[in-house]
């Protein structure tokens, strides 16, 4: 009896083992039937490599006949010895004032855009104006977004004159494109429940906007505007290159005269400014959400 039981157990184990073997055979069969995509991947890789090589050789890349070693030596020496008298010059032409001006350009531009983008955002949201008008709004926003910032600054310089005001206006107009698009998305994602509830208790349109719409969209709007402020601090440094105020002007002058120590002073200012602004805005954004 006992032997019989043991035999039975062994038999059971063997069948289990056979079963598992059977399964593993199934798995290996399936593995052999796996989609063979290596040809497809190979073709794509080869195409990309060829495109890169072709691009390198066809774009007529020319390297100026310069002594690279000396050039890099000057670069290294300039960057390790920033022009400290320029970096700590507290007058109007010095780096600290220009950095402050850059942040001011970015902030006032973003504020303008954040306010101006609200009507655009509502006019582009599908749940406010319907599908057809929203298409027109979207097209308008794409036009604003694709108009290069520098060209816009060049146009505005003719109108407002050189200076930081032009930079702020440029950023204010250019940022509407992105801000209004993201505002519209926030409005479209709004929960209609509170508005219907306010409707049901007889609120008028202003009360509906104040208690139903604003509390829902304001955090989104603020976080989008802060995100855009990050981007705008960077672009405010660029706008100076076309003499629209800020740090860009000394940067481009230094680069054109190969004054590496002045350039590194400006770059240090840019790095510190961007890191501080990023830290502040990400902290504020994490508080909002």
């Amino acid at each position, binding site marked *: 009896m006992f032997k019989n039981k043991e035999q039975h157990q062994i038999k059971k184990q063997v069948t289990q083992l056979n079963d598992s073997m059977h399964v593993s055979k199934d798995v290996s069969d399936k593995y052999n039937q796996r989609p063979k995509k290596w040809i497809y991947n190979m073709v794509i890789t080869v195409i990309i490599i060829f*495109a*890169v090589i072709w*691009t*390198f050789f*066809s*774009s*007529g*890349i*020319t*390297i*100026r006949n*310069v002594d690279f070693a000396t*050039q*890099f030596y000057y*670069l290294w020496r300039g960057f390790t010895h920033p022009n400290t008298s320029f970096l700590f010059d507290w007058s109007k032409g010095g780096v600290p004032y220009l950095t402050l*001006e850059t*942040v*001011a*350009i970015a*902030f*006032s531009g973003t*504020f303008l855009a954040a306010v101006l983008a609200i009507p655009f955002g509502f006019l582009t949201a599908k749940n406010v104006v319907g599908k057809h008008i929203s298409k027109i709004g979207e097209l308008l926003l*794409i036009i604003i977004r*694709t*108009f*290069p*910032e*520098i*060209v816009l600054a*060049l*146009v505005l*310089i*003719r*109108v*407002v*004159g*050189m*200076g*930081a*005001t*032009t*930079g702020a206006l440029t950023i204010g107009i250019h940022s509407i494109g992105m801000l209004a698009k993201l505002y519209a998305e926030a409005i479209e994602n709004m929960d209609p429940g509170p508005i219907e509830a306010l409707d049901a208790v007889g609120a008028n349109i202003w009360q509906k906007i104040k208690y139903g719409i604003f509390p829902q969209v304001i955090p989104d709007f*603020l976080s989008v505007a802060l995100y855009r402020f990050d981007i705008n601090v*960077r*672009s405010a*440094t*660029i706008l100076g*290159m*076309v003499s629209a*105020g800020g740090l860009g002007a000394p*940067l*481009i002058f230094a*680069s054109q005269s190969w004054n590496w120590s002045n*350039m590194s002073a400006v*770059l240090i200012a*840019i*790095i510190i400014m*961007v*890191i501080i602004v*990023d830290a502040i805005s990400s902290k504020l954004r994490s508080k909002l959400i």
Partner: protein
Amino acid sequence: MLATKTYTLRSGAKVKQPFNKTYIVALIAILLFVASGWLVLQNKGTLKLNELGTILKQLFTPTQSDAFNIHHTWKDYFSYLLTAEIREALLDTLRMSFVGSVVGSVLCLPFAILCSQNIVKTKWIYVPMRFIINLVRTMPTMVIAVIAVSLIGMGPLAGIIATSIFTFGIMTKMLYECIEALDMGPFEALQSCGANKTQAFFYSIFPQLLPTYIGYFVYNFEINVRTSVVLGYVGAGGLGVIIQANMDGLYTRSRVGAILMLIFVIVVILQAFTRWIRGKLQ
């Protein structure tokens, strides 16, 4: 406005209305706006509003001048876009952004791994790596292009360097955030089977990452096309060179307008293309 109301409920309990911070935030924002606006207005030129119409007309209508006997038609306006000069510049722009995106997104792979907390568990590696990447990301593409132009001279190579450094910075950040959000189950399973970290990465993380990676690549390519359009303004090749050369001339400004329309069409096509690819990847 700032005082909080206290309500007495029917049960006798008193409930304080929570303090509304919106007004204070708005007040601070407005004060900052006034301060920065004041600072900005310190540095302003003379306002000439009538110039706006003039310059927009010069940009977006064919050039007309009796003095120089130039009477262009709309056909002349748009036929400029078909010249070899524009074709070459446009190709340069596309090449610059393409090569820059490829180089940057290949370079970013090892750095993204070194930055991600769940693969490299040593704090001494990923914290300094992230700091370096953050330093790289603070530089606007234009600023890198300025440095590159003054180092290696004008031409598309400077643009390629600028776009690849920019792509490198942003791709590394996006990728390591993506790696950290991945499912680490397969990775641990492979390691427990005896695979080393590299093998485990290529067979568990990489397949999960690939669609996202391609999506980010395409997204970066789109950004790079937009930025490299104007990179030429500082001498880094592409359409920007032509914009810079023609912007100051009174009778060549219409070319800039035509180029702007070309840019608009390209960006719209590119956006549709990237949206299509990203839709396919999901």
